[in-house]
């Protein structure tokens, strides 16, 4: 067990060091969130400040998500481009341990996205969260982080076995923002899309996050936390099977670098 923790820690440490010098990481945690926050704040404050919480937090949530799953997932793609993906599969340490270390690093970096976006809201638009319940907010953020972490861990095998998985998910990026209610409630979506939203764990955590920062919000926040955690657990179960499949397939096909 200690050796696995050490391996995950080294993976975390190495990937964090690489991110510090990677311009892509700065694009994801700093530039993108600020751009989306700016658009959100301009649009959402055009008719008053009633919906401003979505502008204050929306860019940060988008940045957090992008760094966690895109940066975390893409780190596997980069291993392929750097010719080190086979070594990662061949070492005695399970793939999932290495992936957990990488994604914990991106999770930590992703949280930074809230700093510039909240700063932009405050200094650029004089906008603050209307009614923050610190305890509920902290728990909601924790649940959101957990849901992002599990999704990133679950998706990574897809990045490993398919070169186009990243492209496809990248194409869906803005759709995910909408489906998970990162910048507006999912009730804004067409009725037929809402069931998809409810099957996504970040939807519930994001709903709880906004409810804990909005004065008039009502609802079962604890139930939303549980829904998010439950869905995340379900993803985890599916991902275990996916990891086993990928590890076997990579060895059998021998096409890891070409996938």
């Amino acid at each position, binding site marked *: 067990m200690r050796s696995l923790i050490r391996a995950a820690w080294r993976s975390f440490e190495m990937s964090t060091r690489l991110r510090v010098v990677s311009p892509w990481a700065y694009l994801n945690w700093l530039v*993108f969130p600020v751009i989306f926050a700016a658009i959100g704040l301009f649009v959402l404050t055009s008719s008053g400040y009633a919906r401003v919480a979505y502008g204050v937090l929306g860019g940060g949530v988008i940045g957090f998500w992008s760094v966690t799953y895109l940066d975390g997932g893409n780190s596997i793609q980069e291993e392929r481009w750097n010719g080190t993906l086979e070594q990662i599969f061949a070492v005695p340490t399970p793939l999932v341990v290495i992936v957990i270390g990488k994604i914990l690093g991106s999770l930590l970096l992703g949280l930074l996205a809230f700093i510039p976006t909240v700063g932009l809201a405050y200094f650029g638009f004089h906008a603050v969260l209307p009614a923050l319940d610190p305890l509920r907010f902290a728990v909601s953020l924790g649940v959101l982080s957990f849901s992002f972490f599990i999704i990133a861990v679950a998706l990574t095998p897809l990045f490993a076995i398919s070169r*186009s998985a990243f492209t496809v998910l990248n194409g869906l990026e*803005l759709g995910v923002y*909408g489906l998970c209610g990162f910048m507006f409630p999912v009730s804004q979506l067409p009725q037929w899309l809402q069931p998809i939203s409810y099957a996504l764990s970040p939807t519930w955590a994001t709903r709880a996050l906004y409810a804990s920062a909005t004065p008039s919000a009502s609802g079962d926040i604890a139930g939303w936390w549980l829904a998010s955690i439950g869905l995340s657990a379900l993803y985890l179960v599916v991902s275990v099977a996916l990891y086993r499949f990928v590890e076997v397939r990579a060895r059998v096909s021998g096409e890891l670098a070409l996938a």
Partner: protein
Amino acid sequence: MTQSLAAFARSTWLQYVALFQWATPLGYFAYKVVLPVTQIVFFVQLGVFATGPGNALYFALGNSLQLTANSGIFGVIATVSNERQYGTLPLLLGSPANRLLTFMSRSFVNVLDGIVSVVFGLVVTAILYGLDLRTANLPLLGLCIVVISITTAGLGLLFGSLGLVMRDSIIVANVVYYGLLILCGINFPVSRLPDALQVVAYSLPLTRGVMAAREAVAGAAFGQVAGLLAGELLVGAVYAGLGYALFRLLEGWARRGGLQEAY
């Protein structure tokens, strides 16, 4: 002359093929269909949440028009950065090919691709949000789409030149593409920006072209938007000219410093 045109046409076609060398059919579909649709839907729903359903078309139309930047910015910048990534930049710089033709062919295919992207966006807008073009001045709208596709590619050429000396110029493409969403009146009027940013907005392509296109959809005559289109073309020409000058400047710099092979 015929040989030059043939080289231009060949180069243009190969640019496009090379641009999507990474893509499987599914990846190409995600990039060219899913991404535009989700962009339009996301910003329309955001706008409807903020301002009510009456403004859905404002957001849908703005984002449909901005889709040309997907080709004009990403496409044009990627053509140079891909040359570097795949090690063919030294061959390009070492070839005796006419630099102006090489430079312009990099944008031409993306202008065509940009026009197709906008038309696709308008079809999506018509299907999802009931865009009614029966009262629109369609020839003028078509002209606006062509003009913004050319001018946006002009901006792309300027930043694409950075790919001669910069490893991650595609990052610049991301910043410029999404920056245009803030500055060019895509999701809210330029007048809502602070004064300094309004100056930046009017010095960028798209801003006037999008205004003109919105007017064309409302049925305006050519004379009503001629000034906007002339301004848009002027801005695009300035960026293309600056881009070509920068391309030649950085080409020399890259050659002297061996930067074209630095990766």
